């Protein structure tokens, strides 16, 4: 049965892509729960399109849905992200503490960017996409991507150069 075979193919794709998609969702949203919601929603949508045989590159399709859904969610909900300490769950050794602190500082700074700027940064430095490819994913022009990227990098440089109260790790902060 073609539909069943198609579902099996999709399951194979989804199982293979899931770790990378979850991670992409995590770096995009900065929040594990939001990342899971985003991936689940995008995969469900991809499944519906897959059954209609409307997808050529499922990985690119899901990534595109995730990026645009992420920006859309923020806009619709008027979300203002509250920056809190967000160290990763896994413990680290003393030797790695400084390096981990540095990564966490960058992570927190990324979470302070507007969603579309963050998406540009993630697509550029995590997915290693070109400006043209990012523009295609986000449905905008390469020029807009370039300017958003420049603004995001300037903002990150400011945040990381001069730690303000929101950027300073606090003792006893609530971890997620």
């Amino acid at each position, binding site marked *: 049965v073609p539909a069943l075979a198609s579902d099996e193919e999709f399951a194979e794709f989804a199982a293979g892509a899931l770790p990378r998609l979850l991670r992409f969702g995590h770096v995009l949203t900065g929040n594990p729960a939001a990342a899971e919601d985003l991936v689940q929603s995008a*995969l469900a949508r991809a499944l*519906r399109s897959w059954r209609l045989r409307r997808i050529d590159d499922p990985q690119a399709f899901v990534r595109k849905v995730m990026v645009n859904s992420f920006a859309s969610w923020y806009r619709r909900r008027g979300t203002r992200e509250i920056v809190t300490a967000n160290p990763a769950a896994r413990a680290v050794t003393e030797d790695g503490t400084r390096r981990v602190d540095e990564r966490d500082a960058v992570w927190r700074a990324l979470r302070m960017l507007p969603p579309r700027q963050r998406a540009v940064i993630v697509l550029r430095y995590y997915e290693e996409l070109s400006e043209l490819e990012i523009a295609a994913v986000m449905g905008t022009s390469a020029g807009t991507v370039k300017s958003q990227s420049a603004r995001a990098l300037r903002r990150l440089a400011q945040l990381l150069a001069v730690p303000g109260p929101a950027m300073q790790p606090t003792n006893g902060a609530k971890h997620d």
Partner: protein
Amino acid sequence: MTDLEDRIRESLHDPRRQLPVWPDLMPRIRRAARRQRARLAVAIGMAAAVIGLAIVAPLLASRSSTGGGPGLSIGTTPPPWRSFTTPYAPHPVISYPRSWHVYTALIPGVVMPYDVVVCNRKLDPLPDIEGYPDLRAVPRDATMLLLYIRDPVPIASANLSGRPIRLNGKTMRFSDLGGGQRNWQGFRNFIGSYIATSGPMLYSIGVNVYVGPDAGSEWKQVQPIVDSIHLPGRSSTAG
């Protein structure tokens, strides 16, 4: 900047950010797909209501402004825009052909989500839209309407003095169509919005009209809509 870029890359590739995979992957995706289909069904119902209201609202406004009677009553709760009068002349009454195809398209858009697509040509497959419509599925001789409801915003952010206002980066007019024209994948795209308020919030119903380069007689069926879309200070942008 290179150092910053390296730090960003290192942070984004931090192995501690990996999330555990789901053991129930496909059941989970299928459940989510079923929920999306259910929401889609609800959206279809709402879209039908939106189209009905878009047709009825100008009628109500023109009847009340010309003193032609007490006006129609819709249910027990009056729609938010019932208590407002437009400072502009009434627009032509818009009638949508009964034969038009109505689709829904959930678009996590770059600009905004659309809720319904009305097209005078059958679209196969449906436009699979991420942000802006993918008009490759639309025949070049088609005319397509996209209607959507934008999220409400606090009324304090808008100036309802009767002048054109800026909202969400677009020029709109109170209880009126306002907007502009641009080209999108060879299609002419006309943009407009109806605006109304309810309590402390301001709502808007958006209208996007896409006219294919080969559009023929059917184009005339929506020309009244496009003719009524005009930029502040201009009589019309219709081409």
